């Protein structure tokens, strides 16, 4: 009974189309997505991330204090934040594809993905595939791409959770790279003891975030290359690269 506390209210001021308005939302319960549900369908479908007090904020992360809210999408005047968030989410999805795609005998150990950089032309995931001499054919790459492209119909949400360092070590105990990374990630967090973990369906991964609202933003998704790299910290790894385009920015089929 002590765990169930009284629900407090926070005041959320929304700026932007269709209208500027003020809403009273539940503290630690309501998210920017629930504000969007109050205002209209347009914001629910097109918003990628929110800006809460000027900082990028997940669409499904609860409010903690009174704030000013803004929704961002790909056709904004300055779409840098949505672009970065999209690129980071696509890296995250690439990790889930690698875990799902191979047979059970092959234990894929995901390592990490670098900061998203749209100008590099591709998003990246480094992993140990336990297949040192594998050179994928175009059909195999196509299979990997299909898994990502199909996610747009599933509309799976990205949900954030800040867990304790001991819980995180337990969650990722079968992944030698993540266990090495977790202490340094926890040291960077404000409390010095928590690790940000994201969930997309069954897949769980560590990333600083924020990620986009759901997988329905993906229009095209393709895994393009698999190459060998030598990491100074983790030894020999495979680097998997891909390319994706959001639904809001249509490109020609030709």
């Amino acid at each position, binding site marked *: 009974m002590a765990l169930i506390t009284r629900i407090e209210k926070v005041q959320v001021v929304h700026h932007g189309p269709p209208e500027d308005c003020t809403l009273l939302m539940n503290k630690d319960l309501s998210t920017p997505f629930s504000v969007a549900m109050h205002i209209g369908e347009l914001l629910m479908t097109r918003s990628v991330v929110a800006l809460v007090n000027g900082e990028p904020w997940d669409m499904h992360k609860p409010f903690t204090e009174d704030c000013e809210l803004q929704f961002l999408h790909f*056709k904004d*005047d300055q779409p840098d934040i*949505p*672009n970065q968030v999209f690129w980071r989410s696509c890296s995250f999805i690439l990790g889930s594809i690698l875990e799902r795609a191979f047979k059970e005998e092959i234990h894929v150990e995901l390592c990490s993905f670098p900061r998203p950089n*749209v100008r590099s*032309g591709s998003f990246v995931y480094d992993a140990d595939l336990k297949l040192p001499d594998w050179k994928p054919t175009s059909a195999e790459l196509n299979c990997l791409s299909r898994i990502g492209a199909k996610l747009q119909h599933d509309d799976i949400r990205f949900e954030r959770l800040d867990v304790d360092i001991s819980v995180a070590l337990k969650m990722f105990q079968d992944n030698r790279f993540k266990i090495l990374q977790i202490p340094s990630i926890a040291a960077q967090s404000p409390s010095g003891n928590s690790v940000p973990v994201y969930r997309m369906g069954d897949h769980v991964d560590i990333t600083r975030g924020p990620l986009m609202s759901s997988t329905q933003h993906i229009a095209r998704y393709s895994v393009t290359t698999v190459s060998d790299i030598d990491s100074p910290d983790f030894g020999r790894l495979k680097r998997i690269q891909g*390319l994706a385009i959001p639904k809001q920015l249509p*490109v020609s089929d030709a």
Partner: protein
Amino acid sequence: MLRIPIKVTARKLPHAGGRGSGPQGRINKMRKLVTALIRHERIEGQYQWVDEARGYAERLILEAQRNGDTHKGTMEMADYWLLEKDLVHKLFKVLVPRYTNYPASFTQLWSLGETFPGRPVPMAVLELKGNPWPPVVPKERDQRNSLVNILLDQARKDYRQQKYESIAALELNKQSEQQTSNIDDSSASTS
């Protein structure tokens, strides 16, 4: 040359000037619309009428610009198409100077669509460019930083880079060939 696409045949506008008004009714309707456009610089109406009137207005301004106010035929044409005669002065003194060295069409047509609920008739807005009214559509957004455009820019840059490198490699090859041929010549001459 008109700067707008128009059909060669005139559009059929039944009952333009009321039922049974015939071809003359249609012309009267067009004259009214052209007069209103020159006076107010922005008019609303049914799409087909307004679109048809656009061609006559463009032609009128073009003729006035080309021939000036001393040309008899142009003056007669202005007198016929402008039902209110103070607008003849406006045509030659305001619109002709406004559109000197003007590369594009003088008018702009915006589609408003059908009103729902209501009569399902497509409506439109016709305006003279450079009018003092607030703009119908806001300024276009800068889409340079959209994700697709960034990717395309980068791809273009890479392609150009590859091309320059291949050209440079070709020239290097040519130079080396010339040098070898020079050496051959010199060796032949010495021997």
